[in-house]
């Protein structure tokens, strides 16, 4: 990528007490790009995610936002800088209508104090339009969000992050709890977000979900990088082999063939 990436880390590391959770990771994500962070359980994916999301400050290395060094003081800081994170539980309320969920905690209101009134019509219209841009055609934004499928809920959460000013969306295992079809739906929305010029950091342990949509793949193992690969430079079999570290390769290979 020639353009300056939105978010870049150079030799970044994180130490919890005497535990080195992450060491010497360098990667970046630019506009319209999908960076997949792959690794097995305990590889350091969550630590990297928390550093990028501003939950934990990094211990070593440097972080660059639009080419300038930055150190997030907290999740709010990261959010204000346009780095939004969609966690696995999505921060939604199942019994509430889609549009209320979309604006949860950031309701559009007119007036002051106890007399401020929500601009309901506008909120409904924006929700419908924003979801439409993601390719989610809801007939009724008044239906409880709990009635949507897992994939649709995930994409509402992504659309919400985008609408509220995200330039980079970090997705924490967005497909892990989903069935094959639903995972496909989410991947399509990831692609949509990318096409709209967002940077996407897709954290997953599933190379089958990462490969179709990713541009670059950062493979982690035991807190260290096993390398970052352009899609043209690596096949899915090799990616899987790298993640699994050579173990259980036979069964994995069979799984791939069937997939």
């Amino acid at each position: 990528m020639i353009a300056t990436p939105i978010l870049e880390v150079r030799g970044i590391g994180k130490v919890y007490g005497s535990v080195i959770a992450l060491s010497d990771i360098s990667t970046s994500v630019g506009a319209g790009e999908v960076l997949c962070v792959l690794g097995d359980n305990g590889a350091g994916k969550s630590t990297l995610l928390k550093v990028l999301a501003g939950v934990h400050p990094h211990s070593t290395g440097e972080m660059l936002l639009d080419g300038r060094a930055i150190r997030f003081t907290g999740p709010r800081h990261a959010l204000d800088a346009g780095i939004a994170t969609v966690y696995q539980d999505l921060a939604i309320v199942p019994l509430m209508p889609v549009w209320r969920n979309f604006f949860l905690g950031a309701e559009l209101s007119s007036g002051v104090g106890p007399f401020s009134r929500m601009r309901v019509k506008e909120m409904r219209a924006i929700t419908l339009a924003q979801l439409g841009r993601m390719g989610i055609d809801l007939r009724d934004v008044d239906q409880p969000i709990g009635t949507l499928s897992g994939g649709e809920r995930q994409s509402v959460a992504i659309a919400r992050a985008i609408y509220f000013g995200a330039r980079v969306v970090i997705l924490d295992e967005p497909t892990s709890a989903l069935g094959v079809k639903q995972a496909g739906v989410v991947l399509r929305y990831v692609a949509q977000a990318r096409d709209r010029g967002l940077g996407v950091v897709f954290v997953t342990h599933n190379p089958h979900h990462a490969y179709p949509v990713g541009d670059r793949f950062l493979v982690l193992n035991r807190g260290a990088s096993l390398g970052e690969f352009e899609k043209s430079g690596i096949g899915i079999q090799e990616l899987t082999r790298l993640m699994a570290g050579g173990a259980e390769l036979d069964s994995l290979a069979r799984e791939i063939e069937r997939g």
Partner: protein
Amino acid sequence: MTTVDTAVGRPGADERVAATHPVTRLLRRPEMGAFLAALVIFGYFSLSTNAFLTPAGAATWLYSASLFGIMAVAVALLMIGGEFDLSAGAMTGTTGLLVGAFTTQWGMNLWLAMLLSLLIALTVGAVNGLLVVKTGIPSFIVTLATFFILQGVNLAGTKLITGQVAIQGMNLVPGFEAGKAIFGSTIPVLGLDLKVSIFWWIGLTAVASWFLLRTRYGNWIFAIGGQLQSAVQTGIPVRRTRIGLFMGTAAAGWLVGMLSLFDVATVQATTGIGQEFIYIICAVVGGCLLTGGYGSAIGAALGALIYGMILQGIVFAQWDNNWLKAFLGGMLLLAVLVNLSVRRQAGVRA
């Protein structure tokens, strides 16, 4: 990648389309069950008793519904926020007794006494809320404790001050007539002599409903009761909102305390005891989920209307009064079952 349309991946997608039909949507509203039940009960007592539909009869059951309704609406808001307030009933007694004691015993100005009583009620509500928010102890337990404390204070305090179990002679307090105009008067409407509390009830229901559905605070209440963790993650001021809800039921307790005080100019020390569950039942009959996150103010008002109609209807029909309790229990069970199915349909597929 798979090509997908909107309905993909969910076998029940067609049902979702059907569910958006306007009539179905109306039927799915939380207060719909209570509305239909109210119609049936109204029809039944209207046909089976002579007194129910007379102007005097209607004014009677409307009045009794109004006092329960004001509390039920405040309790419904709190329940939607995921909490209970068992001290709400005793609070209607405490506030009235305070004003009574301040004025008749210590000669305090009536309006000052009312203001002070309100402040004390709000403080108790805030303490309830703070304890729940800070300690994480279920509100059921915290407010059960407050309930017993208030009950004890109401009885022992009244006896200590007056030597009786009631405070009387409010009508001799300067300014009582002006207070009665606001809280205890009767307004004739279309041949019905309606107590002013009925208008307070209707007004409060309208305001609460608007608050719940059309302000951001309402949104926060639903979110806090529906999924506390999500409410925290989206940056909602969770603590403030929850404490505010407890102060809301306390303030409603004060209002009802004033309405009864100025109606009869006497406060019994036992006022409100045992009514806390009736408020909850009214809210649940009106569509509130016991688990929070779902319900409506109008529903709670309708729940109270049902209760008022049954309470007086049983008297008019000259049945044994004790049937009321059995009826109430049955209604609660039925309402909980209906609400449960609503919750299942409305998808808790989290």
